[in-house]
């Protein structure tokens, strides 16, 4: 691990640890965008993590950006950090981006976007479903094909019709309808390797890292509770039945973190699809099992709004489905393996 990585992790841990207190999480759930937290993230250079320095970004290594993102998720930071990083990567320096939180489209299946040249200008039409934080973003960076070429477009959300929605963690997930004209400067060819598949893969790598962070914290919270809660005259963590459940929570958390590392390496290594697919599938499964054990251990108190646990488990339940759920990514892996043939399953695992 490089010295830079350590510095970024320390900085992120301090920033999110101090800023993401209960009042921030609660206010965000009630619909208020967390401007002060966002300003700190921007000032620390994390918002522009994947934007070139020439475009005002901090041009971090992808692994370092994802490490910081994982830490933000371990504090349930209720802001579009992943989406702003993705937007920076999409724009890649060929589009000037405004300050402030950004998001991307399409973010999920079922989106229909059409971009057409209209003289010197452009016309964007169609609908993107469940766009994260669209209502709060200063720009939506849209990926769309025009004449068979991948293009990126910068759209002011005010030009679009936004139908507000939320995920289980009450994070904004808005359906956005575009029917707007864009200037020549608002649209540019997508960078090399930027296409619908790589965008979805990078989104999955981000959610895998967020799941790993959230699950790590879920483990911590649950261990602490098991050590404190006394029943039958001793902390419940002393009971073997509880210990075995917590061991499995720890095992799946460790696996999710290893898988998220794998995704980060693959994202840095040309957005290599299969390791990212495997990571998102594995992290999604860990999220389901881990959240279940955490709630079982906490009993009724963990089921209340008052307790912290739900800020993490609701994110786990949301993120496992976003940018492709386990079965979506397993299908991609399985298709490739079936195509390669049963004799090549092993060599594909090794090469992936």
């Amino acid at each position: 691990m490089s010295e830079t990585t350590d510095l970024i992790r320390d900085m992120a841990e301090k920033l999110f640890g101090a800023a993401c207190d209960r009042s921030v999480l609660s206010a965000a759930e009630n619909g208020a965008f967390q401007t002060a937290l966002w300003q700190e993230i921007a000032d620390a250079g994390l918002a522009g993590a994947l934007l070139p320095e020439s475009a005002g970004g901090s041009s971090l290594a992808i692994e370092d950006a994802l490490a910081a993102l994982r830490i933000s998720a371990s504090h349930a930071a209720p802001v579009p950090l992943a989406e702003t990083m993705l937007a920076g990567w999409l724009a890649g320096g060929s589009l000037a981006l405004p300050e402030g939180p950004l998001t991307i489209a399409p973010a999920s299946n079922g989106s229909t976007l059409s971009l057409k040249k209209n003289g010197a200008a452009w016309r964007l039409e169609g609908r993107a479903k469940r766009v994260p934080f669209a209502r709060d973003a200063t720009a939506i960076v849209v990926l769309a094909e025009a004449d068979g070429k991948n293009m990126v477009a910068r759209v002011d959300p005010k030009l679009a019709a936004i139908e507000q929605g939320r995920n289980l963690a009450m994070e904004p997930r808005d359906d956005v309808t575009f029917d707007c004209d864009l200037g020549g400067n608002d649209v540019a060819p997508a960078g090399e390797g930027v296409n619908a598949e790589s965008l979805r893969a990078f989104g999955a790598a981000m959610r895998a890292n967020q799941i790993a962070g959230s699950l790590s914290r879920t483990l911590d919270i649950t261990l602490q509770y098991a050590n404190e809660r006394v029943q039958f005259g001793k902390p419940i963590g002393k009971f073997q039945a509880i210990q075995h459940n917590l061991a499995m929570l720890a095992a799946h958390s460790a696996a999710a973190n290893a898988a998220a590392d794998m995704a980060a390496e693959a994202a840095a290594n040309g957005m290599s699809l299969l390791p990212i697919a495997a990571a998102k599938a594995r992290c999604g499964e860990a999220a389901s099992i881990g959240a279940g054990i955490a709630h079982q251990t906490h009993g009724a108190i963990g089921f209340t709004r008052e307790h912290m646990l739900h800020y993490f488990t609701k994110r786990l339940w949301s993120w496992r489905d976003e940018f492709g759920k386990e079965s979506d990514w397993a299908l991609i892996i399985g298709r490739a393996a079936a195509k390669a043939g049963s004799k090549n399953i092993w060599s594909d695992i090794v090469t992936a």
Partner: protein
Amino acid sequence: MTQLTFAPPPPDTEATEKLRADVRAFVAVELAHMTPRQRASSWSGRDPAFSRKMAEKGWIGMTWPKKYGGHERSALERYVVLEEMLAAGAPVGAHWIADRQSAPSILRFGTEEQKQFFVPKIARGELFFCIGMSEPDSGSDLAATRTRATAVEGGFKVNGTKVWTSGAHVAHYMILFCRTDSKSDDRHGGVSQFIVDMKTPGLKISPIYDLSHEHHFNEVVFEDMFLPTSALLGNQGDGWKQVTGELAYERSGPDRFLSTFTLLIEGFAMLGDNVDDRAKIALGRIIAHLMTLRRMSRSIAGMLQRGEDPAVHAAIVKELGTSLEQEMVEVLRLIVDAEPDGKSDNPYVAVLAHTILHAPSFSLRGGTREILRGMIARGLGLR
């Protein structure tokens, strides 16, 4: 944070990938005659001639010092050979235990004389070992061991019974774990390890057939068996400490998630072009698990190389890995239309029968699921 992190594994190198190609070329020739059913025995399959061929290639004792017949290669290079052998279903069982844990223990705790005598022969694929740990009244509770070595002139006299001793009938030596002192206050004290020649008078081996009628494990009875003092491995009374050190080697390798790999290959071979989306999703999910486990297991190889103690990490890999091995049977059953039959000419059908009948052992051998979960809990500070 009480997190058990798996550091990134050491990266592949030109040397590891050249080695991988060498192993693949070797198994393509050497295993050509083996049926899928034979390959499905995985590291329980024993073929001493195959072990000696591997030794000639320098693939036993890969990380040991050259002065003891080893090859001073990296833990990752050794890992490449292990995983390629297991993925191909090579019959590595004869030397497996000696290579995995007996020789490493001798190198760590043995006398110079023991190292010089045993280790080069193990590296040549000439000496095979078994593990004398479990007893009729001491399974998971290893500290309850009753077999006792009593000091006599010139050595020890051993009485007791070991059970479930895999490969005792083909091994040349056993590393015996037994009590040497009755007065220890510490439950983990007063136990020691010995290197026992399986031809020693007073040692009797009887087969215990498993539920598939196969002969892998044995009962080994010691009746006034004399062992010279030179048979003691390490310090008298240090047996507990020594044996727990072996377990990280025993629990972290690819043998803990590739035991059923042949079933996966044969299942999909049988489906041929009829792999529907449901089957693809199931296959993809298993591969996602295997890729993650492989990364974790290779991370532990790196920890061992750096001299760290990965006991709890190894428990996690074994628990997740053996659970996946067992689950693979259930997943394949529901995808492939076939009933298990060990006598079938259909490779998948025969492999399925074999695997179903052996799967219960995966989460027993080398530490039960419950013991491992207890170890992980201890690592989390809950005990």
